[in-house]
C-alpha cells in the first residue's frame, strides 16, 4: 500500500529550539489518525510541514509520494489536501458562505454553480446551513471553528490535516464532527491533533503521542490504554498527589504510576496511558 504521508529524519528548528526532531513516520491511506501531545510538543509544527505550509529544516517528507519542498509537487499535493490551521482567522465582514466560497476559489473551483453547491454541502456537513448567510462577526467561536472546518472539507480531499478541530466546539458539535470525520476516514485519510484523549478513543484507529518533537507512542487507542496496565490503582492513602491521582466519577481516587504492594488495580483508560507517557511517570516492568 502506498503511503499517504512518509517522513524520514524530519526535523524543524526555530532558532535553537528543535520543534520536531528526526521524525520517521508513515501513514497509509484510509482511517483517522489522532496526534496527541502537550502544548509545545511539536504537533502544530509537524502538521504544518505535512500541510505544505512550513518547510523542514532537515530530513525528508513526502505526501502522496510527492515532495512539498518542490513548488510544482507542492501544488499537486495541495490539490488533494484539506487543512485546518490551529487558529484560523476569518474576515469578520464576510458571511460564512463568502469565507468558504473564497477558499473554494483558492482551491481552483472555478465553475461558480458547482462551487456554490459544494460550499452549501460542506456548510451543511458542519451544521451551518441555517447560519451560512450570517456575518462572521455575529457567529460564536464554535460556529467560526465549524466554518473553518467546512473550508478544509471542500472538494472531499484525499488527506485532511486538522489542527485541533474540536477546539471551541460543544459536546453536541463534537459528536457531529466525529461523524463527519469518521465518514471522511472511510474513503480518505484524516490526521488530526487534539488535547482530548476522549476524541482519540472515540474515533481514531491509530494514535501517535508526540513529546518533545519525537513520536513516543504509535499504536491503537487500546494499545495506548494498555501501556498503563498494572499501573492504575485505587489510592486509599488519603494524601493523594493531584499530579498522579484524582477522584473519579464514582468517588474512588485513581492513581497512576508504580502501585504499592497489595494495591487494588483498575482497568486503565487511554487517559492513563497518555498521562504515563506525557508526565514521564515511572512505569516499572
Amino acid at each position: 500500500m502506498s503511503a499517504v504521508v512518509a517522513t524520514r529524519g524530519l526535523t524543524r528548528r526555530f532558532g535553537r529550539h528543535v520543534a520536531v526532531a528526526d521524525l520517521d513516520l508513515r501513514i497509509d491511506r484510509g482511517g483517522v489518525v489522532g496526534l496527541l501531545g502537550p502544548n509545545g510538543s511539536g504537533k502544530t509544527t509537524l502538521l504544518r510541514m505535512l500541510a505544505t505550509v512550513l518547510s523542514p529544516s532537515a530530513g525528508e517528507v513526502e505526501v502522496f509520494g510527492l515532495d512539498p519542498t518542490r513548488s510544482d509537487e507542492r501544488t499537486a499535493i495541495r490539490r488533494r489536501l484539506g487543512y485546518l490551521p490551529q487558529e484560523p482567522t476569518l474576515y469578520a465582514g464576510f458571511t460564512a458562505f463568502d469565507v468558504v466560497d473564497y477558499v473554494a476559489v483558492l482551491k481552483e473551483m472555478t465553475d461558480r454553480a458547482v462551487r456554490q453547491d459544494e460550499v452549501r454541502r460542506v456548510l451543511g456537513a458542519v451544521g451551518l446551513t441555517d447560519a451560512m448567510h450570517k456575518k462572521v462577526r455575529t457567529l460564536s467561536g464554535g460556529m467560526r471553528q465549524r466554518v473553518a472546518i467546512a473550508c478544509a472539507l471542500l472538494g472531499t480531499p484525499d488527506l485532511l490535516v486538522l489542527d485541533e478541530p474540536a477546539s471551541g466546539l460543544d459536546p453536541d458539535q463534537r459528536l457531529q464532527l466525529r461523524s463527519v470525520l469518521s465518514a471522511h476516514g472511510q474513503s480518505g485519510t484524516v490526521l488530526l491533533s487534539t488535547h482530548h484523549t476522549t476524541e482519540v478513543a472515540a474515533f481514531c484507529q491509530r494514535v501517535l503521542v508526540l513529546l518533545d518533537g519525537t513520536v513516543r507512542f504509535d499504536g491503537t487507542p487500546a494499545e495506548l490504554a494498555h501501556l498503563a496496565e498494572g499501573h492504575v490503582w485505587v489510592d486509599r492513602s488519603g494524601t493523594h498527589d493531584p499530579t498522579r491521582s484524582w477522584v473519579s466519577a464514582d468517588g474512588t481516587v485513581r492513581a497512576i504510576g508504580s502501585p504499592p504492594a497489595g494495591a487494588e488495580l483498575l482497568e486503565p483508560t487511554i487517559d492513563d496511558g497518555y498521562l504515563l507517557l506525557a508526565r514521564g511517570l515511572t512505569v516499572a516492568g
Partner: protein
Amino acid sequence: MSTQHTGGWHAAHDDLLAYREGHLHGAAADSVEAHLLRCADCRAALATSVPAEEQAARWDRLAVAIDRPSRWSRRSTWLRLAAGTPELATAAVSLAVAFVVVPLAAAALDPRPATAWFLALAPALPVAGTVLGYRAVADPVGALAEATPLHSFRIVLMRVAVLLGALLPAGVVASLLLPGSAVHLLGWVLPALAGSSLVLAVGTRYDPIWMAVALCGAWAATVAVGMDRRRLAPLGEALDGLVVNTFAVQAVAVAVAAVAVLHLSRHRDELAYGASA
C-alpha cells in the same frame, strides 16, 4: 373595487385574482396591498386562491432568492482574489485620492516646496501600497488559504496590481497638474516601480515591511538633501538636475526593478507571508 361584508370592507374577489396574477398596477395594486396588510380574511382568501403546487413553487423561488449568495460572492473569481478585503479596496481608493488632492492643495498655497515635496514623497505611496497588498489586512481568510493550490505570490501580485493600478495613474495625474515640467515631475515613477518590485522580491523570503520603511526613508533623505542645495533656485532649476532626475538614479531604478522582477519570476511560488511561524 371592494365590497362590504358583515365584518367590514373586503377586497373584491376579481381584484384579488388580478392582484394574484400581477395584473393590477398603480393605485389599484397599492390599494389592494394596503388592504391585505390589515385584513386577515382577504389574506386567507388570497392564499387559498393559489393552487398548492403554485404555492410550493413560489416558496421555492423565494427560498432561492433568500439563499442567493451576497453581491460579493457573485463577483468574478479573479476580481474576488485581487480585491482582497473591502478595507484593501478602501485603502486603495483613499490613497489614490490623497495622491492627487494633497499635492495640488499644497501647491495652491506655495507651489515650489509643494512640488519638490511631491517629488520626494511620491515613490513612497506605491511602495506603501505594495506592502499593504502583501500583508494580512488584504487577506480575508489568513492561514486557511495557506495550503490551497492558488496560495502563492500570484495572489499577492494580483492585489498589488489593483493597488498600483489605482495609485500610479493618480500620481501621474498629480504630476501633470502641478506647476513645473512634467518630465521632471514624473521622475518618481521609475523609483516607485523599483521600490515596489524590490519590496515584493524581499517578500519571497521575509516580511518586507522593514525593507519598505528603509527604502522610503532613504529615498526621502536623498531627495531632501538634493532639494536643500537648490532651495533658493527657481522652480524649474530646482527640479532640473534634482537627484531624482539624474541619469544615475533612473538607471539604478531600472536595474533594481529588472533584478527584482527576475527574482520574482524565479521564486513566484515562495511566499514568506503566513509561513514564517
